């Protein structure tokens, strides 16, 4: 059963990693991905908006999809919302398995899918006062699409952006 959380607070990487292995003797590999807020072009902070009723459900489905595809002993997805300063972490994905391939692949899968299937939106704040909504990137769609299949949130529909809600 995956651990999924949407929160404003910082998270504790070491504690989350320890929780995945505590009391188990079958974990041979823990892969993690930590997304951090870069200070590109004078960016000072980001405000992460989400759709509370939908976001945690989407994350649970994405995590369940990973657990269905790989033999994981555990899986943790934590995504922050609210104001995040440059240099602070945004998202943590942790996957644990007996063997490294399952842990590494499922970790990459989860972050690729998160980027394109979970309802979060980033607004960048710059030192000069400018505010800018981040645009979705075609390469994120491509990265998610390489995993194929009918995924966490109807990707077949999302792959036709020219029709979506049009």
């Amino acid at each position: 059963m995956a651990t999924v959380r949407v929160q404003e607070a910082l998270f504790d990487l070491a504690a989350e990693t320890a929780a995945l292995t505590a009391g188990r003797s079958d974990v041979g590999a823990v892969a993690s991905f930590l997304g951090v807020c870069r200070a590109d072009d004078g960016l000072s902070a980001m405000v992460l908006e989400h759709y509370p009723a939908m976001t945690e459900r989407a994350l649970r489905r994405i995590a369940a999809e990973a657990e269905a595809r790989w033999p994981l002993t555990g899986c943790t997805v934590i995504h922050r919302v609210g104001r995040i300063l440059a240099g602070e972490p945004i998202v943590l994905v942790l996957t644990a398995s007996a063997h490294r391939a399952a842990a590494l692949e499922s970790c990459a899968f989860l972050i690729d899918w998160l980027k394109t299937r979970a309802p979060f939106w980033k607004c960048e704040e710059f030192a000069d006062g400018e505010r800018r909504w981040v645009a979705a990137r075609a390469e994120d769609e491509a990265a998610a699409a390489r995993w194929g299949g009918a995924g966490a949130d109807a990707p077949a529909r999302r792959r036709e952006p020219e029709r979506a809600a049009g």
Partner: protein
Amino acid sequence: MRVLYFAWLRQKVGVAEEEAAPPADVRDVAGLIRWLAARSPGHAAAFADPRQVRAAVNQEFATPDTPVAPGDEVAFFPPVTGG
């Protein structure tokens, strides 16, 4: 019907959510968008480029032909940018 807006759609419409009672001939997401876009200049601006708009009906990603009905929660937002 409850309609929610996120990110720059919320900013353009001017509210995060509103109640809507579209006429009976509004049966799907595409119809709802056409009806909402006529409500105010803000709505019109929010829906000006349909390629930039995504929708969810009752917290599930939706397409233009997804049905909508009284009592539904319909959300509009740009392509997601989390992670």
